[in-house]
């Protein structure tokens, strides 16, 4: 199968088609003109020779009668000089010519001249010489094909010139057509390529000056618009799906998977840059009891509130995540040490001190038990850090009061 480089371009195809059509036209016209010209010229040349032969026969007759070759030569000399005549010979009763006049013919040497001569004057034109109705001799006139040869040569040159003109004209024509056909097609191809390679869905093909191509362009652009819309929808859906996969639907906080991902990245960077960061684990106090007492909707409200409060006071680079149930985790991005942990713990305690409004109108205060681990002080890898934070939280959990009821209505 031929590759794109082997395939001819629109311009080449147009040029080839034009050239062929024009070539055929020029060839037919040229051939017709040439052949008609040859035929007419041949007839005229022959008639001219016959006329000259008759004239020579008439004027040479007395010279033959008086047997005067010099007079005969004088009589045919001016006739032999006329164009189209190569020579004139006068024959009396004997086989030897009585008088003759030969003109040197330059065309006789050339091949075209030879062809023309053998085509038009294969043998000399003869006319009888009469005296008082009696034939006393014969005049033979040899034709000169120089004029015919000139015509053939001019015809061939003209044909060649026509071919050259044809080539130039078809090239120009092809260039013009190319601008009208190939350029818009190439623009469309460029847009298609940009869309395929560069995902440039906002590109559109420019207007074309030919109806079919412009229709094609319209459809192409409409297709591109659909493609762009489809592409955007796909991107949005992908983003939504990816958000769903990495976030907790209830609180909107990142889930465990995303947190672990973030943790790995932060740990990597901290190791590389030699900075420190902190991981906090938080667990709701007496959350199970709220669920049991007020229902799952209340529990959900509490979780949402906790999530919102945890996010408050954090920097953009910090991550608050829900690990599951009433377990939360906070990643304090580098540089964060023990002070940052203390500050965050205080902030969270302060936030959680405010009561949470339940859907049923009740208000509860839910405390959070925290456990922290600081890299690299409390562990060199994730497992160690998680374990440290978890252990600290469990330790703190011992003997912690459960949630407090804030006055029932």
């Amino acid at each position, binding site marked *: 199968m031929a590759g794109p480089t082997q395939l001819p371009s629109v311009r080449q195809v147009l040029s080839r088609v034009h050239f062929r059509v024009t070539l055929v036209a020029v060839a037919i016209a040229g051939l017709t003109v040439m052949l008609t010209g040859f035929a007419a010229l041949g007839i005229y040349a022959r008639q001219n020779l016959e006329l000259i032969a008759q004239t020579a026969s008439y004027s040479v007759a007395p*010279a033959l009668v008086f047997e*005067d070759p*010099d007079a005969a030569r*004088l009589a045919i000399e001016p006739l032999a000089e006329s164009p189209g005549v190569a*020579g004139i010979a006068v024959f009396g009763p004997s086989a*030897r*010519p009585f008088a003759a006049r030969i003109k040197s*013919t330059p065309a006789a040497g050339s091949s075209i001249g030879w062809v023309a001569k053998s085509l038009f004057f294969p043998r000399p034109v003869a006319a009888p010489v009469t*005296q*008082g109705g009696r034939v006393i001799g014969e005049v033979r006139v040899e034709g000169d094909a120089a004029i015919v040869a000139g015509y053939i040569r001019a015809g061939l040159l003209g044909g060649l010139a026509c071919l050259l003109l044809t080539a130039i004209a078809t090239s120009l024509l092809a260039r013009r057509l190319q601008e009208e056909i190939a350029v818009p097609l190439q623009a469309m191809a460029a847009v298609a390529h940009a869309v395929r390679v560069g995902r440039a869905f906002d590109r559109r093909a420019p207007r074309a000056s030919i109806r079919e191509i412009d229709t094609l362009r319209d459809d192409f652009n409409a297709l591109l618009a659909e493609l762009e819309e489809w592409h955007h929808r796909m991107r949005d859906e992908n983003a939504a799906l990816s958000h769903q996969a990495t976030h907790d639907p209830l609180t909107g906080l990142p889930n465990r998977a995303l947190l672990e991902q973030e943790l790995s990245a932060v740990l990597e960077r901290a190791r590389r840059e030699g900075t420190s960061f902190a991981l906090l684990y938080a667990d709701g106090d007496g959350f199970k009891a709220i669920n049991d007492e007020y229902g799952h909707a209340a529990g959900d409200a509490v979780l949402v509130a906790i999530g919102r409060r945890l996010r408050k006071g954090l920097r953009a680079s910090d991550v608050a995540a829900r690990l599951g149930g009433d377990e939360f985790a906070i990643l304090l991005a580098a540089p964060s040490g023990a002070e940052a942990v203390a500050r965050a713990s205080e902030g969270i305690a302060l936030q959680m001190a405010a009561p949470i409004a339940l859907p049923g109108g009740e208000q509860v205060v839910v405390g959070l038990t925290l456990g922290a681990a600081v890299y690299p002080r409390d562990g060199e890898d994730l497992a160690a850090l998680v374990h440290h934070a978890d252990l600290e939280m469990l330790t703190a959990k011992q003997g912690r009061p459960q949630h407090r009821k804030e006055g029932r209505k």
Partner: protein
Amino acid sequence: MLLALALSAIVPGSPEAPIPASDTRFAPGTEDSAVARTVGGIASYTRWPEPMATLRICVSGAARHADRLSEAARTAGRPATVRRLGIGAAPNGCDLLYLGPMRPAESLGMIRATHGRAILSIAESDPACRGGAMFCLAVSAASLSFRINIDAISRSTLRVDPRVQRVATLAGGGN
């Protein structure tokens, strides 16, 4: 077939050669036949006012080459009769008057007698062609030429084909 080649070998091509006088060559001893042929030729290119079946030739004077004049019939294209005419006799019944050598006065008289009549006059020995004859022969050992007297021809009722002038040498011309 290739006439051009054949002819170029025969003709010594010198287009600038001087224009020769009329010059009919013949084998030695055939002067009389040559004269008869020339006379017949001149007659064939001459038109008489009345068409005639026979060319009547009258010979006068001491003609030296008139013995075979009856042969003129061949080139004249019609039968020919020849009879002698005494010097000074009226040229009755003559279509062509062949004048041999005679005294200028006699010659003049005979030519005057042809004036106004359809008689072609040919002088045998008047190389300058001043004697008043229409045609004058010049016979030498191996060639025969003739001169033409345009004035005499234009005065007569005869019509001579202008092509003959090309062959002839004009009387009084610078030739």
